[in-house]
C-alpha cells in the first residue's frame, strides 16, 4: 500500500489505511516528540494527540508539500502543547546571545551515532534545545519558531546561537579514542 493510497483511505476514514499510517509513522513521531519532551510517557501522549489531529484534519491536507513534513509539524505542535500543559507555558528565555560561533568541529563528529546526537541535544539548555530542534532538525524558520513559541525572532536567533556554541563545546570535549571505545562497548552489549 503506497502513501497516496493510505492518505486517500484516511480521508475516507478507512481503518485499514489509518492503521497503516500509524504503523508507518509512529516510530518516527515518537522519536520526534521525545526530542522535545525528554519523557517517554509525555512523548507517547503527544504522538497520540498528533494522530488524532492528523485523522481529524487530513481532509485539509493539500498534496502540495511533503506529507511527512506536514505530519511532523503537527507532532511538533502537539509536543509543544503537551509541554505547555505540563509547565503552564513553553517558557523560552528572552536572551541576547551574540557570541561568535566557531565554524569548525573535529572530524570524528561525523561518526556520532543517532544516540550520541540525541544525548548531545538532551544536554543543551531546554529553551535552546527546542529552538535547535525546530531550526536545525525540523527546518523551521526563525519567524515560524517565533510564532510557534510566541517569542521574538531575535530571541530565536539568540537561542540557536547559544545551542550551537554549547554543542560545539561538548563535541570538542569528546575524545576520539573515547568515542571508538564507547562504540565498541555498545556493539558488544547490544
Amino acid at each position, binding site marked *: 500500500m503506497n502513501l497516496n493510497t493510505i492518505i486517500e483511505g484516511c480521508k475516507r476514514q478507512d*481503518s*485499514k489505511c*489509518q*492503521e*497503516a499510517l*500509524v*504503523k*508507518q509513522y*509512529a*516510530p*518516527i513521531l*515518537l*522519536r520526534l516528540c*521525545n*526530542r522535545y519532551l525528554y519523557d517517554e510517557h509525555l512523548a*507517547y501522549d503527544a*504522538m*497520540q494527540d498528533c*494522530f*488524532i489531529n492528523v*485523522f481529524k484534519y487530513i481532509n485539509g491536507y493539500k498534496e502540495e508539500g511533503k506529507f511527512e513534513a506536514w505530519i511532523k509539524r503537527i507532532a511538533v505542535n502537539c509536543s509543544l502543547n503537551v509541554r505547555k500543559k505540563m509547565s503552564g507555558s513553553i517558557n523560552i528565555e528572552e536572551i541576547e546571545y551574540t557570541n561568535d*560561533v*566557531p*565554524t*569548525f*568541529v*573535529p*572530524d570524528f*563528529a*561525523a561518526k*556520532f*551515532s*543517532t*544516540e*550520541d*546526537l*540525541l544525548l548531545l541535544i538532551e544536554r543543551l539548555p531546554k529553551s535552546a534545545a527546542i529552538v535547535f530542534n525546530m531550526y*536545525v*532538525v*525540523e*527546518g523551521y524558520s526563525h519567524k515560524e519558531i517565533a510564532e510557534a513559541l510566541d517569542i521574538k525572532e531575535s530571541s530565536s536567533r539568540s537561542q540557536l546561537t547559544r545551542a*550551537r556554541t554549547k554543542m*560545539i563545546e561538548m*563535541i570538542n570535549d569528546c575524545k*576520539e*579514542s573515547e568515542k*571508538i571505545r564507547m562504540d*565498541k562497548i*555498545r*556493539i*558488544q552489549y*547490544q
Partner: protein
Amino acid sequence: MDYLDFEKGLKDKLSQSRKEVDMNRLLNDLNIHNEKPSRFIPGFLSTSALLIAFLSIAYFSYTNYFSEKSTSVAHTIQANEASKAVEIDKSQLSIEANVSSEASIIAQSKKAQNKIIEVEQQESSQKIIEAKTAKSIIDQTNPQINTNSYFKGIGIDQASESVLNPKKNLNNSTAKHFSIPAENKIILSPKNQTTSKELDKSTKSAEIIADINAKPLETIKENSQVWNSKIEAIPSLSLITLQTNETQSASFLPLLKDCPTFKDRLWTFSFIPEIGYQWPIKKLETDDANAAGLLEERKQDEITLESFQAAAYFELKHNSGLYLKPGISISKTNEQFKLKNNITISDTTLQLVRIDTIIVNDTIEITQIYEEKISDSTFVNTINSTYSISQVDIPISIGYTHLLEGFAIDFEIGAKFNILTRTSGSLYIGDEPAFARLRDDETYFRRSVGLGFFGGINIRKQLNAFGEVYLAPRFQFNTKTISSDGNAISQKYSNFGLHLGYVYTFATK
C-alpha cells in the same frame, strides 16, 4: 570539518530515526480496530481436532465392530454367516483332535491308549467344574446371556453324567475312536447339531484315516507331532477361555494358522513421528530506496546457518493407497550476520629526527632532536550476531502410496498454516546501534506467517507388521513474508528438506 556539515548530518540522522512503539496499545488507544479477531486459526485448530477425534472414534468403532462380531458369534447359537464360519473353525478343530487321537493310536501301543483315556477322564472332570463355574459367573455378571441354551450347547448334563459314571464315559470315549472327551467335543458343536455333526465327523475321520494309511510312516509321524501339539493346547484352555474371554481366546487363535482371515481392513490408522534437516532458501527484498544499502549488506554478510524440523502426524490410509495426513510441526532456523568494523587507533611516539653536534672549545655538545610521530593502526573487528526463527505449523496433506518391490513411494502434497512465529537474538539494522535485540513483538517480524504449501515424496520401507520408516525429500514455501510491515526489508523463506520418519500402524492390513 565545517560545523554546518555536522548539522546537516545531524538533521539527516535524526529526521529518520525511529523509536519502538507498542503498536497494539497505540491502535487501541486510537480506537483503530481494523484487525478483526482471526477466526481462521481457532477454526482450523478445532476442525483439525474434530477430524482427528472423528477418525479415532471411527477407527476404534471399526475395530470393535469386528471384535464384537466374532465374540457374538461365539455367544450366539443362532445360525448366521459369522457363526457358520466359527462352526467351521471349531469343526476343523474337532476333526484335528480326532485325527490327532487316531494318529496317536497308530503311533502308540494299547497301553499308551489306556493311559490317555485315564488322563482324559481326569481332565473331563475338571472341565465340568469349570463349565459350572463359568455358568454361574456369567449368570451373575451378565444375566442377558441365555446361559441355559449356551450351556445346553456344551452339554453339562452329559458331562455330569460322565463324571458320575466314569465307566460309561470311558465306553463312550472308546466307542468314538479315542477322540477328545465328550465335553470338549460338545464345546465345538451346539447340542442341536450334535448328531449330524458327529456323523459328519465320523465320516471325515474315516476319510482321514484312509488318507493316513495311504501316506508314508515318516509323514504321519511328522504330522502327528504337529497334531499332538495342537491337541495338547485344547485341554489347557478353560471353557471360559474358549467361549467367553476374548483376550485369552486371542492367545489361542495364533495357533490356528489355517483359520480364514476376515479382518481385511479398508482403512488403517498410523502415528508418524518425523525429524528433518532443511536448507532454507531466503529471499530479501525492499521497496524502500533508503534501505537499499542495508539490503545489500544483509545479502552479502547474512548467512543461514541451519534449520531443523520435528513433526508428528496422524495418517488415515485407504487400502487403495490414498491417505490423509494432518499433524503438527515445529521448526527452528538460525541466521548469522558478520559485521566487520575497521577500527583505527592512533599511537603517538617520539622519533629521533636529528643529532646536532657542536664543538665549543674542547667540549662537544651533542643535541638529539625528537619529534612526535603519529602512526595509525587499523584493526578489523568482526562481530558475529545471530538470530533464530522458531515456528509452529499445522500441516495437512494428501497423498498416494505406490507399492513397488520391497518398498513403496508416497506422492504427497499439502498445505500448512503457521500458527506461531517467534524470533530471538539480534538483527542487523544498519543504523546506530548496528544490531537490534529482537523482542516478543512485531517490530521486525510477524508473529504468524500464515499459509504455506509443500510437496514431496516419501520412500517407505516396511520393517515389520506395524512399522515402516521413510526418507522424504520435501519442498515447501510460504505465501507471505516473515517480516512485519514496519520492517523495510522483506524476508521470505522457502525450504528444501530431507525428513526421516517412522510410521507406526495401529491396525495391520
